[in-house]
Each structure stands twice: as C-alpha cells, then as structure tokens.
C-alpha cells in the first residue's frame, strides 16, 4: 500500500516519549527478552555457527526463489492445497473474500499473521459483512481495543495487566473485573473456544514454506493456531513470497534460532506442519486448504542484490527487542505494520522512501539490530542505502519514491559541508573561527537548538589540534 502523505516519525516518537507508563512497560519487557535470549546462547561460537547456517539457508533459498516458489506451488497442489498469487494487498483481500464467499463462509477465526496485518484484512472483511476474530491472546486483546500490534511477536506488549483487566471487564460479555492472569486468560479462552467450534473458516500465517514437500510450518505457543487451522472446515493460509525454503531439513536450524531469538525459548509449545486438507481416512482437519502468496513489493526487493537481504527476515523480533529507539517509544510510534529496525527498512521499501524519509533517519545506526539478527541482515547498511535512495533519483535502482525525500536546504548544507572540508585552507579558517568564537554561538541557533534541549552547548577548544601540531613544527614528514 502506497501512503500518500509524508508521515513524520519524529512527531509520533516524541509523543510516545511523554508516556512514562509506556516507556516503563517496554523497558521492562525488552530487558526481560534480552536476558532470556542471552541465556539461550551461552556460547558465542555456537551462536555464530547457528547464525552462519541460518543466514546461508535463507540466502540460498532467496537465490533460487522463483524456482523454489514454482516447486512449492506444484507440491502444494499435489497435496491438495489450492495456491493463489496476489501482487497487491487489495488483490489478496479480494482473493480471500472470494474463497470465503464461494463456501458461504461468514465467520473467520485467525491465528497470528503479520501478512494479514499488512493487508488490513480484518477491516476489509468487516466491511464485507464477515466477522474476523483474532485468536492469539495478544492479538485478541488489541482487537478488543481496535488497536494494531506494537510488536511482531508480542502484539499487546505495550499493555500492562491492569489495563487488560479493565478492558476485559468492559468489553467481554458477563465478565467480572479481575487482575488474576489465569482468570483473565480463562475469560478469553471461553470466548475463543466458542468461536473455534463454530467458525466457518480459519486463517493462519506461515513461518516456513517447504518447497520439496509442499508443507506449511507454523510456530506458536498457545495452540490457537492449531485450533484455527484444524477445527473449521476451511483453512486459508497467507504468506509473503519470501518464506519458502528448499528442504524440510532447512527448517530445523531456522526454527531453533527463531524461537531462541524471539522469546528465548529453546522450542515453542506447538510446531505445526500442514501438508493439506483432511484425508479420506482422517477424522479431523479442514476439508479445504487455500494458500495466498503475497508480493506487495517483495519482488522489487528481490530484484536488488543489496536490498534482497531484507527478505531473509524470519520475523523473530530480536532486532526490535534490542533496539534502543524501539525500547523507548514502543511499536505504535512507527505508524507502520512492522515496527523497529526491520520495519525501518521494510516499510520504506513497501510504501516508498519519500513518504518514509523521516523514518529512515530514526536510527542512530548503532547496529544493535544487525548484531542480534539471526540471519545477519545488515540493517544499518540498508538504512544508509535507503537514505541515499530518498535523496537521489539516479542510484540506478527500482526503489519506490526515490529522490522524493530530497530538500533544497539539505542539499545545500551538504554541498557547503563538502566545499569547506575538501579545502584544507578553508577548513583552517573555519576552524580558527570556531575555536575563537565557538563559545559565542547562541544556544538557540538552528541545529544547536536541538542539541541543547537536554545538553549544554559544546564549546570548541581554544586551539585546535592541527594548530598545536603546526606550532610544534618538527613532526611533519
């Protein structure tokens, strides 16, 4: 989906910073996740070995993506899974609507799926008179409040227990107020059980798609994914086209590093392998399985050798857990489906670098994200590349909106900057003035004003190093 209006990250981030409860919620949650992940990888060499292997598997899969997708489609079809392709989110939505209408399906229970968030599927189905209910507990919580996920793994991580208790007591029929976590969970379970039993269709995402077997792999902890894909007569899965790997044996290492990086679990509670509809001799399972494969800008990323690395992502969320910016503002401030570091490179590539110019600059390039990424996506490098795309039309790429984030003022600033710094004589004069009069610069001057909101004004030394070395003489070659 291509956004029309420029979205200013700085504004929404500043607003988020003003909410101390939110900041505390995120800091506590992220610190916990960082610790849990660290405990899963006591030996740095083992971790690196597993990262190398995972990166290699994802890179290798992407290298032959078109062939793997074809093989995957053929094997899915052989297994009785009906495969559909969608270039845009609109197309994907229409496809799902069509599948449901053909079966006269009116209600849908959903397992967690970021791709369906990308498509704004719930709102679309509701506008067509179909009820779509989120069955992942976190997703259920935010759906009750009409919110979007603030984290790709833990969608309701921005809320604390009290907030959820209040919300449940108001929004769930016949619910009483309680802050007991078990009771709260039981409340949601009661509602969801009903829905699982009577929904016409179930929807799920896909963590890994195996080409050689035509299998969909689903990682989950609550069992709701299994209920969504197994109980209703119709199962619809959605996935981005990058999710495919060649062999079943590719899945094991990716799975191992996914759960460890995400929640610090060695394994998840459930791991579902779905290879088709209910067989003739089977007692349960859906009668029909459909798979919608979405592009939404992914083939554009695929076509670019550097940006392709973006598609290695296995959506573990470790980059956001470790990101000092995300930790302080939470996911909603990004005003994007995918928040945090991966969102900062994914969103501009999906929506255009111009409208997302400010988002690309919302990073100190500290590299905490790429340091933990299990598939070694060089996020800072890609960010810098996208900054270049945003300000230059002529990089020779196919990035959406390239050059549209450019301003005359910034152009001039860099030209002047380079003009001075490539001429030592000019720099010498400039630095002479800076050291003599730098103190006199008002703290309210542009740029300095931003710096001095929380800091004192930096004051240059009285004599620069070059000047001192010149005075010392002797040491020149």
């Amino acid at each position, binding site marked *: 989906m291509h956004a029309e209006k420029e979205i200013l990250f700085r504004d929404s981030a500043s607003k988020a910073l003003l909410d101390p409860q939110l900041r505390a919620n995120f800091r506590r949650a992220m610190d916990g996740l960082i610790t849990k992940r660290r405990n899963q990888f006591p030996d740095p060499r083992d971790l690196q070995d597993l990262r190398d292997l995972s990166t290699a598997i994802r890179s290798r899969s992407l290298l032959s993506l078109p062939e793997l997708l074809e093989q995957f489609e053929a094997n899915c079809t052989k297994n009785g899974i009906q495969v559909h392709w969608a270039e845009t989110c609109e197309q994907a939505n229409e496809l799902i609507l069509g599948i449901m209408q053909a079966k006269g399906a009116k209600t849908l229970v959903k397992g967690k799926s970021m791709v369906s968030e990308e498509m704004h599927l719930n709102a679309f189905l509701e506008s067509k008179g179909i009820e779509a209910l989120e069955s992942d507990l976190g997703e259920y919580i935010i759906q009750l409040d009409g919110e979007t996920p603030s984290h790709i793994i833990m969608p309701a991580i921005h809320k604390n227990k009290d907030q959820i208790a209040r919300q449940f007591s108001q929004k769930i029929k016949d619910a009483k107020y309680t802050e007991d976590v078990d009771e709260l969970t039981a409340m949601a379970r009661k509602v969801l059980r009903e829905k699982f039993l009577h929904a016409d269709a179930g929807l799920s995402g896909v963590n890994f798609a195996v080409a050689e077997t035509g299998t969909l792999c689903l990682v989950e902890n609550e069992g709701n994914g299994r209920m969504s894909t197994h109980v209703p007569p119709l199962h619809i899965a959605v996935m981005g086209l990058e999710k495919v790997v060649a062999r079943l044996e590719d899945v094991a290492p990716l799975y191992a590093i996914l759960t460890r990086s995400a929640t610090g679990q060695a394994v998840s509670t459930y791991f579902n392998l779905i290879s088709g509809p209910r067989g003739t001799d089977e007692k349960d399972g859906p009668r029909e399985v459909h798979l919608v494969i979405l592009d939404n800008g992914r083939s554009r990323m695929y076509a670019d050798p550097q940006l392709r690395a973006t598609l290695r992502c296995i959506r573990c969320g470790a980059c956001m857990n470790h990101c000092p910016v995300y930790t302080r503002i939470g996911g909603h401030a990004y005003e994007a489906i995918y928040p945090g570091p991966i969102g900062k490179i994914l969103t501009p590539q999906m929506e255009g670098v111009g409208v997302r110019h400010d988002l690309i600059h919302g990073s100190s390039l500290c590299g905490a994200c790429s340091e933990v990424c299990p598939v070694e996506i060089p996020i800072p490098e890609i960010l810098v590349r996208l900054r270049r795309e945003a300000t230059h039309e002529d990089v020779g790429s196919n990035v959406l909106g390239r050059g549209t984030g450019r301003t005359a003022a910034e152009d001039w600033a860099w030209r002047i900057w*380079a003009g001075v710094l*490539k001429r030592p004589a000019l720099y010498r004069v400039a630095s002479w003035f800076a050291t003599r009069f730098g103190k006199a610069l008002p703290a309210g001057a542009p740029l300095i004003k*931003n710096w001095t909101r929380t*800091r004192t004004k930096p004051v240059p030394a009285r004599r620069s*190093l070059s000047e001192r070395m010149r005075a010392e003489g002797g040491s020149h070659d």
Partner: protein
Amino acid sequence: MSDKPTKVYFYGTCLVDLFFPDAGMAGIQLLRQAGVEVVFPEGQTCCGQPAFNCGYWEEARDVARTQVALFPKDLPVILPSGSCAGMMKVHYPELFHGQPDEAQVRAFSARVYELTQFLVDVLDVKLKDLGEPVKVTWHSSCHAVRDLGLKGEPQALIGQLSNVELAPLSRTHECCGFGGTFSVRQPEISGVMSCDKAADAEATGASVLLSTDGGCLLNVNGTLEAKQSPLRVQHIAEFLWERTHAR
C-alpha cells in the same frame, strides 16, 4: 621486536581537532612513548562519515579523497576515534566501490587503526600506572565495536593500570544516542538515550567516564553538564597519558 612499525601517521579527526585536542596530543605522546615516530600531515579535516551516513555519497567521496591523499606512504594510519577509524577502514571500500581510485583507497583502508587497537594489537605496549587510585567506567561506542570490531583493547589497557578500578556500565552495549546527525534530527529520542546513559554511568560510582569516541563524549558530557553532575568524561588517550608519564 623488529617487525613493529617505527613510524606512523596520525589522523586527528574533526571532533578531536576542534573539541578534544588534548586527547589528540595525548595519543601522539602515547605513540612516541612506545618508541614510534609520529607524522601528522597538514590539511586534515574530516573522514566524511556524516555525509556518508545521510546518503550524500558524492560529497562524502570528495572529502574522503582529499584525506586519503595526505597519507601516501605505506605507514599505519592511527586515529583516536573508533567511529572514524571504522569509516575509513570499513566503509571507504564501500564508498569507493567502482570508482577509478578504488584500489588506492582500499590500500589506504588496510593501513587504518584505532589508537588503542594499535597500542595493544600491534605495539603490545606495557603501561605503568603512576596515578592515584581512581574508579572509572567505560563507554564502548557502537561504531568502534560493531563497525570497526574493537575487541576490548581499551579495557585491556585500562586493566594494565594498577590503581584504576573499572566499573562496568549496566547496559554496556547500548547506544548513547549520539549517532551523528541523529542527535539533531531526532533530538527527543536522542536526548532520552543520552540521559539514560549518563544515569547509568553515574550509578557505577565512577568519577570518570572514558571512551574512544569524541561524538559519544560530547554527547554524554553535554548531558552530564546540563544536570550538573560531578561525573566527568575523558578521552581514553588523555587518561592513559596522564596516568603513565611522570609530570
């Protein structure tokens, strides 16, 4: 040992040049103390990192080229900055990829070292502490560690000082919020990050926060000063020099 270099170039970097000249001088003295002759070519300005990080590569290249030209001889180039060393060592080859002078720039990049890296890994210096007992803390700059790949060399040097206690920060690897233009483009987030870093440093009970990066030092120092904290910041070169030479 005979294979240790006896002559090196020193690259001051713009932040050290303007804001931390004492650190630059100290770096040069430390090298001399280790028996190395230091050449400081005139005409040094900036490594070009700000423009590179913002996507203005032509401008970054213009500036980078004038800098590379200052270091023609096959001598190590030593920088008292992890971030700028990372730029010159790791990002120059990327910046000059496909340019006519790529090979020349690559050869230059291969000669680049951050100061503590050179002192430990190449010169294997042994320091003798002449100072009073003091407790310090160390801020590892993101670029020094994650870009350049510093592997605890500064901490190793501090560890050689018998009267210095090193108290670790509780979130060692978290960015201080400087990030070059990030600090002025996103002042609100950057401000919160640097306040947290300052508080973390204060909580260690150290009296000095050390780093090898001028940007981080400027950032945290400004924050500490704004809250009138007794904690002060210092570049590691200056600290090491103060402690190891007789006054």
